[in-house]
């Protein structure tokens, strides 16, 4: 049995520890809000950069999990995250059913890349129909007359074409196959478009990294990657003919032209896939990622911080996005988005 003096000292110590613990929780409660998002891996690099800058500015942290668009949509439907990020827009009925709204955040380009001996970036030209025929397996050799017809003045070696596609489901594949469906009716009827399709030929690499690696290793291969990967890995990209008939080389300006000339006005909830945009200087395979949030937020505090983050990203995050080879949204589109926030979302 403890003597009364020992008991008092023990209870005094316990009280002191408890008081410190309670006091420290007040400190924690006064700390900033943490918000969570999940989804597309396409935007993960720029999300990390923006969230680091935003945390420095306001002290609020964003925790973004790059788990794939499908998983992001599933999680926002369950309400376990504050916003979802998807490379494919959600349909109007789905948005209606769950009370969600969506808006684009950043634009990126998808470029076909080749590995042909003696061919450098911007030297080879293709159009949508030929590109789709190559991916359908109908054109199997680099000296096929259809390719030569588009490339007068470039001698292509006679070699087998190896198609490299994505083995995993991805937004990059979604936008690429969407473009092929728009320009080649055979592709549209046989293969259609989606995050994963039944590729008629070729080998599958995991992620943009896997495709880049295969294209680098295999002579005579053609694949498709995000522009940032083509630049960093110094792959030879292909000039594509856009809807206006001009052969464009991929660049930030070409992607911006596509985003600017796409018909956003008639798209409810920004449900518009930008491939094959009509602009004269537009790059034909331009993609965006949509942020999906509840119109009536489940957690008002977090939702407010999330909108503040997106406002920061849209208005101040341009340089960060361009450094990573993404394209910030053009100003008219940004104003449309902010008007959409004001009208659709309850703050």
């Amino acid at each position, binding site marked *: 049995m403890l003597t009364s003096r020992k008991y008092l000292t023990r209870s005094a110590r316990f009280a002191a520890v408890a008081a410190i613990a309670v006091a420290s929780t007040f400190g924690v409660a006064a700390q900033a809000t943490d918000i969570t998002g999940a989804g597309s891996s396409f935007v993960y690099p720029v999300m990390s950069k923006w969230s680091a800058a935003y945390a420095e500015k306001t002290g609020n942290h964003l925790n973004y999990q790059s788990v794939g668009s499908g998983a992001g949509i599933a999680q926002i439907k369950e309400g376990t995250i504050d916003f979802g990020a998807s490379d494919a827009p959600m349909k109007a009925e789905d948005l209606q059913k769950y009370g969600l709204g969506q808006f684009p955040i950043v634009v990126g380009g998808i470029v076909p890349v080749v590995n042909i001996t003696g061919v450098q970036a911007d030297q080879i030209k293709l159009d949508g129909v030929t590109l789709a025929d190559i991916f359908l397996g109908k054109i199997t050799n680099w000296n096929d007359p259809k390719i030569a017809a588009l490339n007068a003045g470039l001698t292509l070696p006679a070699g087998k074409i*190896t198609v490299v596609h994505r083995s995993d*489901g991805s937004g990059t594949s979604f936008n690429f196959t969407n473009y092929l469906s728009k320009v080649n009716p055979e592709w549209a009827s046989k293969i259609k478009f989606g995050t*994963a399709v039944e590729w008629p030929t070729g*080998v599958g690499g995991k992620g943009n990294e*896997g495709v880049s690696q*295969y294209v680098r*290793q295999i002579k005579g291969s053609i694949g498709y990657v995000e522009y940032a990967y083509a630049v960093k890995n110094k792959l030879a990209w292909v000039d594509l003919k856009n809807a206006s008939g001009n052969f464009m080389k991929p660049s930030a300006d070409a992607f911006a032209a596509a985003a600017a000339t796409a018909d956003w006005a008639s798209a409810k909830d920004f449900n518009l896939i930008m491939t094959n945009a009509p602009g004269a200087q537009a790059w034909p395979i331009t993609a965006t990622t949509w942020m999906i949030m509840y119109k009536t937020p489940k957690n008002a505090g977090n939702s407010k911080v999330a909108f503040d983050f997106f406002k920061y990203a849209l208005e101040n995050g341009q340089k960060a996005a361009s450094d990573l080879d993404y394209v910030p949204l053009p100003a008219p589109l940004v104003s449309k988005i902010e008007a959409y926030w004001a009208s659709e979302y309850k703050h």
Partner: protein
Amino acid sequence: MPANQAALPIDILEQRSHRDARHERLFRWLLKGCALIVLASLLGAAGATLWGGREAFSAFGWHFLVSSAWDPGNDVYGAVVPVYGTIATSLIALLIAVPISFGIAVYLSEVAPAWLRTPVASAIELLAGIPSIIYGMWGLFVFAPFFANHIKPWLTNNLGNKPDDGKLSWVAEHVPFVGKLFGSDYPFGASILVAGIVLAVMIIPFISSVMREVFQTVPTRLKESAYALGSSTWEVSWDIVLPYTRSAVIGGIFLGLGRALGETMAVTFVLGNAMHLSASLLDPGASIASTIANQFSEATGLQKSSLMALAFLLFVVTFVVLLIARLMLRQLARKEGR
């Protein structure tokens, strides 16, 4: 002890024996619980995948097991390509790994000088500890290009039915199946054979360490008597050591096979991920684990259900393989009169 016990009153002795009996029962229940947890997890996992795949099984029925389609656009799925890829890569891995592991185990237990045994054994155990994604990266960046540039052309030209110069070799013409197995249109390294070789390197440490441990338990008297009668090292290993340790060796082989069947990342990197059924070992393919790893995060609806159904089929394949192992062991034991 007895003197002390005689000095204690009877009721304390009774208390102690009741307490001991209680502790004994508790301990047995604890052990049973551990075994039951394992069984429950296994049944739970199999049941969860079966439940998740019910949509696919009800949509396709038995056709799921024989269809080689995999079309997310039109929502038609079949299990043949992944199942074939899993079985083919694991078989190739076993064919390569088992003789090499046997050689390593015999070398370490019979032939190697005592000072060499521990370093080599530790090196092999280090191999077992390397994460599988490192094997995948090694396969993708180092081995697959080397294979594509140096080994594959030789194989397609000398054994395949689609050689570069158009002239079939004698072997490809006269030996059945060889031409189809080694013919390939593609110049790249990712293929079933390469995946099988990478898997073999991954499972050698497991099989060889089990074999080595078990070879060391063979009574020295048996081996020494065989040596005394004039047997060579090969005869002792094949006729004395291996029969003595047969069931443990088969257990080790199936441990390695289990790893090969379920291996995900290493195979995803080097298998090529083409959902086409091809007779050639030099063409890319797909395995169950790699298909699930690639497509699960973006899959919804019927595609997700088909992937769960594939996971259930992996359970079935593993179960069938273990069943074959048990039957084989029983046959061999019966032949020995046990």
